[in-house]
Protein backbone atom coordinates (compact mmCIF):
# COMPACT_ATOMS: atom_id res chain seq x y z
CA UNK A 1 0.00 0.00 0.00
CA UNK A 2 1.17 3.51 -0.84
CA UNK A 3 -0.07 6.64 0.93
CA UNK A 4 0.37 10.35 0.32
CA UNK A 5 -0.92 13.88 0.67
CA UNK A 6 -2.54 15.14 -2.51
CA UNK A 7 -3.36 18.66 -1.37
CA UNK A 8 -3.47 21.04 1.58
CA UNK A 9 -6.81 22.79 1.97
CA UNK A 10 -8.45 25.42 4.12
CA UNK A 11 -12.15 25.55 4.75
CA UNK A 12 -14.16 28.28 6.46
CA UNK A 13 -16.50 27.72 9.45
CA UNK A 14 -19.61 25.75 8.46
CA UNK A 15 -18.56 25.73 4.81
CA UNK A 16 -18.98 22.81 2.40
CA UNK A 17 -16.55 22.81 -0.49
CA UNK A 18 -15.58 20.39 -3.25
CA UNK A 19 -12.10 19.60 -4.58
CA UNK A 20 -11.22 17.41 -7.54
CA UNK A 21 -8.09 15.55 -8.55
CA UNK A 22 -7.75 14.11 -12.02
CA UNK A 23 -5.59 11.76 -14.05
CA UNK A 24 -5.71 8.79 -11.64
CA UNK A 25 -5.37 5.32 -13.09
CA UNK A 26 -8.85 3.81 -12.91
CA UNK A 27 -7.39 0.34 -12.36
CA UNK A 28 -5.91 1.42 -9.00
CA UNK A 29 -7.99 1.06 -5.86
CA UNK A 30 -7.66 4.46 -4.19
CA UNK A 31 -9.27 5.69 -0.97
CA UNK A 32 -9.46 9.29 0.22
CA UNK A 33 -9.48 10.69 3.73
CA UNK A 34 -8.73 13.96 5.53
CA UNK A 35 -6.66 14.99 8.49
CA UNK A 36 -7.08 18.41 10.14
CA UNK A 37 -3.81 20.20 10.79
CA UNK A 38 -5.48 22.85 12.99
CA UNK A 39 -5.67 21.21 16.44
CA UNK A 40 -8.96 21.65 18.35
CA UNK A 41 -10.12 18.99 20.79
CA UNK A 42 -13.62 18.12 21.89
CA UNK A 43 -15.58 17.45 18.70
CA UNK A 44 -15.14 16.29 15.12
CA UNK A 45 -13.96 19.04 12.76
CA UNK A 46 -14.40 17.66 9.25
CA UNK A 47 -16.71 15.31 7.37
CA UNK A 48 -16.23 14.28 3.75
CA UNK A 49 -17.74 12.37 0.83
CA UNK A 50 -16.03 10.95 -2.22
CA UNK A 51 -17.54 10.76 -5.71
CA UNK A 52 -15.88 9.49 -8.84
CA UNK A 53 -16.00 10.23 -12.56
CA UNK A 54 -14.77 7.89 -15.29
CA UNK A 55 -13.01 10.45 -17.50
CA UNK A 56 -11.86 7.96 -20.13
CA UNK A 57 -11.16 4.28 -20.54
CA UNK A 58 -8.06 4.32 -18.35
CA UNK A 59 -8.34 7.34 -16.05
CA UNK A 60 -10.72 8.76 -13.48
CA UNK A 61 -11.27 11.96 -11.53
CA UNK A 62 -12.04 11.94 -7.81
CA UNK A 63 -14.29 14.64 -6.35
CA UNK A 64 -13.95 15.11 -2.60
CA UNK A 65 -16.61 17.17 -0.83
CA UNK A 66 -15.44 18.50 2.53
CA UNK A 67 -17.67 19.90 5.26
CA UNK A 68 -16.34 21.96 8.17
CA UNK A 69 -18.42 21.00 11.20
CA UNK A 70 -16.97 23.71 13.43
CA UNK A 71 -17.23 27.45 13.90
CA UNK A 72 -13.52 27.88 13.14
CA UNK A 73 -11.49 27.82 9.94
CA UNK A 74 -9.84 24.44 9.54
CA UNK A 75 -6.69 23.64 7.61
CA UNK A 76 -6.29 20.04 6.54
CA UNK A 77 -4.41 17.51 4.47
CA UNK A 78 -6.21 15.68 1.65
CA UNK A 79 -4.73 12.21 1.95
CA UNK A 80 -4.93 9.13 -0.24
CA UNK A 81 -3.97 5.49 -0.04
CA UNK A 82 -3.48 3.27 -3.06
CA UNK A 83 -4.68 -0.12 -1.84
CA UNK A 84 -3.89 -2.15 -4.95
Amino acid sequence: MRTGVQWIGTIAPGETRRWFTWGWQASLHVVWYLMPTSPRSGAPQLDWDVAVERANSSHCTYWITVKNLTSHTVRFEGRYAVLS
Partner: protein
Amino acid sequence: MAITLQRARELFDLVNRKLCCPASSPSPCIPFLYPDDGCWGRAHEMCRLIIADGATPRKVWIYGNLRVDTANNPSCNVRWGWHVAPTLRVSTGSGSQTYVIDPSLFDRPVQQSTWVSVQGDASATTASTDASVFYRAYNGSVQYDPTYSETRAVLTRYRNILKLRSASSNGPPPYFNCLTKPRGVQWFGTIGPRQTHRWYTWGWPSSWHVFWTIMPLTQCPGGPQLTWTVQVERASTSQCTYWIIVKNLTSDSVKFEGRYDILKR
Protein backbone atom coordinates in the same frame (compact mmCIF):
# COMPACT_ATOMS: atom_id res chain seq x y z
CA MET B 1 6.80 18.01 -39.38
CA ALA B 2 7.35 15.43 -36.65
CA ILE B 3 6.20 16.11 -33.09
CA THR B 4 7.19 14.57 -29.78
CA LEU B 5 5.35 11.58 -28.36
CA GLN B 6 4.32 13.80 -25.43
CA ARG B 7 2.70 16.24 -27.86
CA ALA B 8 0.95 13.32 -29.59
CA ARG B 9 -0.41 12.22 -26.20
CA GLU B 10 -1.68 15.76 -25.56
CA LEU B 11 -3.47 15.76 -28.91
CA PHE B 12 -4.94 12.33 -28.15
CA ASP B 13 -6.24 13.67 -24.83
CA LEU B 14 -7.57 16.78 -26.60
CA VAL B 15 -9.83 14.74 -28.88
CA ASN B 16 -10.65 12.08 -26.27
CA ARG B 17 -12.03 14.77 -23.96
CA LYS B 18 -14.79 15.20 -26.57
CA LEU B 19 -16.01 11.65 -25.91
CA CYS B 20 -19.79 11.32 -25.75
CA CYS B 21 -21.40 10.26 -22.49
CA PRO B 22 -23.26 7.38 -24.15
CA ALA B 23 -26.77 7.80 -22.77
CA SER B 24 -27.08 11.52 -23.50
CA SER B 25 -24.47 12.11 -26.23
CA PRO B 26 -24.88 15.90 -26.36
CA SER B 27 -23.63 17.68 -29.46
CA PRO B 28 -20.78 18.34 -30.32
CA CYS B 29 -19.32 15.28 -28.60
CA ILE B 30 -17.66 12.49 -30.58
CA PRO B 31 -19.28 9.03 -30.26
CA PHE B 32 -16.11 7.02 -29.66
CA LEU B 33 -18.16 4.51 -27.65
CA TYR B 34 -20.05 3.48 -30.79
CA PRO B 35 -17.21 1.72 -32.63
CA ASP B 36 -19.55 -0.10 -35.03
CA ASP B 37 -19.66 2.65 -37.65
CA GLY B 38 -19.08 6.33 -38.41
CA CYS B 39 -15.26 6.31 -38.25
CA TRP B 40 -14.95 8.74 -41.17
CA GLY B 41 -16.98 11.37 -39.31
CA ARG B 42 -14.99 10.86 -36.11
CA ALA B 43 -11.70 11.03 -38.00
CA HIS B 44 -12.62 14.25 -39.81
CA GLU B 45 -13.75 15.93 -36.58
CA MET B 46 -10.59 14.79 -34.80
CA CYS B 47 -8.48 16.24 -37.60
CA ARG B 48 -10.37 19.53 -37.33
CA LEU B 49 -9.60 19.71 -33.60
CA ILE B 50 -5.95 18.72 -34.07
CA ILE B 51 -5.44 21.26 -36.86
CA ALA B 52 -7.07 23.97 -34.73
CA ASP B 53 -4.51 23.14 -32.04
CA GLY B 54 -1.66 23.81 -34.45
CA ALA B 55 -0.64 20.31 -35.57
CA THR B 56 -0.69 18.75 -39.04
CA PRO B 57 -2.40 15.35 -39.05
CA ARG B 58 -2.91 12.99 -41.96
CA LYS B 59 -5.26 10.01 -42.20
CA VAL B 60 -4.67 6.29 -42.54
CA TRP B 61 -7.27 4.16 -44.31
CA ILE B 62 -7.39 0.37 -43.98
CA TYR B 63 -9.38 -2.06 -46.16
CA GLY B 64 -9.96 -5.74 -45.51
CA ASN B 65 -11.97 -8.31 -43.60
CA LEU B 66 -11.52 -6.45 -40.34
CA ARG B 67 -12.57 -7.66 -36.91
CA VAL B 68 -11.81 -5.86 -33.63
CA ASP B 69 -12.55 -7.04 -30.09
CA THR B 70 -14.25 -4.34 -28.03
CA ALA B 71 -16.27 -4.16 -24.81
CA ASN B 72 -18.28 -1.32 -26.35
CA ASN B 73 -20.43 -3.58 -28.55
CA PRO B 74 -22.84 -6.10 -26.97
CA SER B 75 -21.33 -8.81 -29.21
CA CYS B 76 -17.84 -7.97 -27.89
CA ASN B 77 -16.50 -7.30 -31.38
CA VAL B 78 -17.12 -5.22 -34.47
CA ARG B 79 -16.54 -6.15 -38.12
CA TRP B 80 -15.62 -3.61 -40.76
CA GLY B 81 -14.77 -3.60 -44.47
CA TRP B 82 -12.69 -0.49 -43.90
CA HIS B 83 -11.67 1.95 -41.17
CA VAL B 84 -9.96 5.34 -40.90
CA ALA B 85 -8.25 7.42 -38.21
CA PRO B 86 -5.94 10.47 -37.97
CA THR B 87 -2.17 10.02 -37.92
CA LEU B 88 0.75 12.09 -36.66
CA ARG B 89 4.47 11.84 -37.39
CA VAL B 90 6.30 11.38 -34.10
CA SER B 91 10.05 11.88 -33.69
CA THR B 92 12.01 8.93 -32.40
CA GLY B 93 15.69 8.73 -31.55
CA SER B 94 16.56 7.62 -35.06
CA GLY B 95 13.97 9.39 -37.22
CA SER B 96 10.17 9.45 -37.07
CA GLN B 97 7.27 7.05 -36.99
CA THR B 98 3.57 7.26 -37.79
CA TYR B 99 1.27 7.14 -34.78
CA VAL B 100 -2.51 6.76 -34.98
CA ILE B 101 -5.03 8.70 -32.87
CA ASP B 102 -8.00 6.37 -32.45
CA PRO B 103 -9.86 6.57 -29.10
CA SER B 104 -12.45 4.09 -30.39
CA LEU B 105 -9.75 1.39 -30.17
CA PHE B 106 -7.00 2.63 -27.83
CA ASP B 107 -6.43 4.80 -24.75
CA ARG B 108 -3.27 6.39 -26.18
CA PRO B 109 -1.54 7.09 -29.50
CA VAL B 110 -0.21 3.87 -31.03
CA GLN B 111 2.18 3.06 -33.83
CA GLN B 112 0.43 2.43 -37.13
CA SER B 113 1.66 -1.18 -37.13
CA THR B 114 -0.12 -1.76 -33.80
CA TRP B 115 -3.30 -0.14 -35.10
CA VAL B 116 -3.26 -2.39 -38.17
CA SER B 117 -2.46 -5.54 -36.21
CA VAL B 118 -5.48 -5.36 -33.87
CA GLN B 119 -7.87 -5.32 -36.83
CA GLY B 120 -7.43 -9.03 -37.49
CA ASP B 121 -6.60 -9.20 -41.19
CA ALA B 122 -2.97 -9.82 -42.08
CA SER B 123 -3.75 -9.17 -45.76
CA ALA B 124 -5.47 -5.82 -45.15
CA THR B 125 -4.24 -2.93 -47.28
CA THR B 126 -3.63 0.62 -46.08
CA ALA B 127 -3.45 4.02 -47.73
CA SER B 128 -2.39 7.42 -46.41
CA THR B 129 -4.04 10.70 -47.39
CA ASP B 130 -3.94 14.23 -46.16
CA ALA B 131 -6.46 15.25 -43.53
CA SER B 132 -8.78 17.04 -45.97
CA VAL B 133 -10.02 13.76 -47.49
CA PHE B 134 -13.38 13.03 -45.85
CA TYR B 135 -14.08 9.68 -47.51
CA ARG B 136 -11.86 7.41 -49.57
CA ALA B 137 -13.22 4.39 -51.46
CA TYR B 138 -11.17 1.22 -51.90
CA ASN B 139 -10.52 2.20 -55.54
CA GLY B 140 -8.93 5.46 -54.41
CA SER B 141 -11.73 7.87 -55.29
CA VAL B 142 -12.16 10.56 -52.65
CA GLN B 143 -14.72 13.02 -51.30
CA TYR B 144 -14.12 16.22 -49.35
CA ASP B 145 -16.08 18.07 -46.68
CA PRO B 146 -14.44 21.48 -46.28
CA THR B 147 -17.41 22.97 -44.42
CA TYR B 148 -17.73 19.94 -42.08
CA SER B 149 -21.47 19.75 -42.84
CA GLU B 150 -21.20 16.05 -43.80
CA THR B 151 -19.06 15.47 -40.73
CA ARG B 152 -21.70 16.96 -38.46
CA ALA B 153 -24.38 14.81 -40.12
CA VAL B 154 -22.36 11.62 -39.57
CA LEU B 155 -21.64 12.48 -35.95
CA THR B 156 -25.30 13.32 -35.29
CA ARG B 157 -26.42 10.01 -36.82
CA TYR B 158 -24.07 7.90 -34.70
CA ARG B 159 -24.60 9.92 -31.52
CA ASN B 160 -28.31 9.11 -31.89
CA ILE B 161 -27.63 5.41 -32.49
CA LEU B 162 -25.37 5.32 -29.42
CA LYS B 163 -28.16 6.93 -27.38
CA LEU B 164 -30.68 4.37 -28.65
CA ARG B 165 -28.39 1.46 -27.82
CA SER B 166 -27.73 2.89 -24.35
CA ALA B 167 -31.47 3.24 -23.75
CA SER B 168 -32.12 -0.37 -24.80
CA SER B 169 -31.95 -3.41 -22.53
CA ASN B 170 -28.22 -3.55 -23.27
CA GLY B 171 -27.67 -0.29 -21.40
CA PRO B 172 -24.65 1.94 -21.96
CA PRO B 173 -21.22 0.53 -22.78
CA PRO B 174 -19.14 -1.27 -21.73
CA TYR B 175 -20.93 -4.64 -21.77
CA PHE B 176 -20.34 -6.99 -18.86
CA ASN B 177 -20.29 -10.12 -21.02
CA CYS B 178 -17.19 -8.68 -22.72
CA LEU B 179 -15.35 -7.97 -19.46
CA THR B 180 -13.26 -10.18 -17.23
CA LYS B 181 -13.80 -9.44 -13.57
CA PRO B 182 -10.43 -8.26 -12.19
CA ARG B 183 -9.10 -9.32 -8.82
CA GLY B 184 -10.66 -7.20 -6.10
CA VAL B 185 -13.97 -6.69 -7.94
CA GLN B 186 -16.96 -8.22 -6.15
CA TRP B 187 -19.64 -7.33 -8.66
CA PHE B 188 -20.54 -5.41 -11.82
CA GLY B 189 -23.58 -3.18 -11.44
CA THR B 190 -25.79 -0.84 -13.44
CA ILE B 191 -27.58 2.11 -11.89
CA GLY B 192 -30.21 4.24 -13.56
CA PRO B 193 -30.26 8.04 -13.86
CA ARG B 194 -30.39 9.81 -10.45
CA GLN B 195 -31.09 6.42 -8.85
CA THR B 196 -29.95 5.28 -5.43
CA HIS B 197 -29.66 1.51 -5.10
CA ARG B 198 -28.40 -0.84 -2.41
CA TRP B 199 -26.40 -4.01 -2.95
CA TYR B 200 -25.34 -6.52 -0.31
CA THR B 201 -22.62 -9.12 -0.09
CA TRP B 202 -22.65 -11.70 2.69
CA GLY B 203 -20.42 -14.29 4.31
CA TRP B 204 -17.40 -12.08 4.96
CA PRO B 205 -15.28 -13.01 8.00
CA SER B 206 -15.97 -10.27 10.51
CA SER B 207 -12.35 -10.45 11.70
CA TRP B 208 -11.21 -9.10 8.33
CA HIS B 209 -10.79 -5.37 7.70
CA VAL B 210 -12.50 -4.79 4.36
CA PHE B 211 -12.74 -1.49 2.48
CA TRP B 212 -15.31 -0.92 -0.31
CA THR B 213 -15.02 1.45 -3.27
CA ILE B 214 -16.94 2.04 -6.48
CA MET B 215 -15.49 2.78 -9.93
CA PRO B 216 -17.63 3.77 -12.93
CA LEU B 217 -17.04 1.74 -16.08
CA THR B 218 -19.20 3.96 -18.26
CA GLN B 219 -17.06 6.84 -19.44
CA CYS B 220 -18.57 10.29 -19.04
CA PRO B 221 -16.10 13.15 -18.59
CA GLY B 222 -17.17 16.42 -17.02
CA GLY B 223 -18.33 15.76 -13.47
CA PRO B 224 -18.67 13.18 -10.71
CA GLN B 225 -20.92 10.24 -11.59
CA LEU B 226 -21.20 8.04 -8.52
CA THR B 227 -20.94 8.30 -4.79
CA TRP B 228 -21.51 5.58 -2.19
CA THR B 229 -21.82 4.72 1.46
CA VAL B 230 -21.17 1.45 3.27
CA GLN B 231 -23.16 -0.15 6.07
CA VAL B 232 -22.43 -3.39 7.87
CA GLU B 233 -24.48 -6.09 9.59
CA ARG B 234 -23.03 -8.62 12.03
CA ALA B 235 -24.81 -11.70 10.72
CA SER B 236 -23.22 -14.21 13.11
CA THR B 237 -20.37 -14.47 15.59
CA SER B 238 -17.89 -14.93 12.76
CA GLN B 239 -19.44 -13.39 9.64
CA CYS B 240 -20.83 -10.09 8.44
CA THR B 241 -22.80 -8.70 5.53
CA TYR B 242 -21.84 -5.46 3.84
CA TRP B 243 -24.53 -3.22 2.37
CA ILE B 244 -23.23 -0.78 -0.23
CA ILE B 245 -25.52 2.09 -1.21
CA VAL B 246 -24.61 3.61 -4.57
CA LYS B 247 -25.99 6.93 -5.76
CA ASN B 248 -25.92 7.99 -9.41
CA LEU B 249 -25.39 11.76 -9.51
CA THR B 250 -26.00 12.01 -13.27
CA SER B 251 -28.99 11.85 -15.59
CA ASP B 252 -27.44 8.90 -17.48
CA SER B 253 -27.33 5.20 -16.60
CA VAL B 254 -23.89 4.19 -15.35
CA LYS B 255 -22.21 0.78 -15.22
CA PHE B 256 -19.67 0.28 -12.47
CA GLU B 257 -17.42 -2.06 -10.53
CA GLY B 258 -18.00 -2.76 -6.83
CA ARG B 259 -14.48 -3.16 -5.46
CA TYR B 260 -13.08 -4.43 -2.20
CA ASP B 261 -9.68 -4.43 -0.53
CA ILE B 262 -8.86 -6.61 2.45
CA LEU B 263 -6.64 -4.41 4.59
CA LYS B 264 -6.14 -7.04 7.30
CA ARG B 265 -7.11 -10.71 7.62
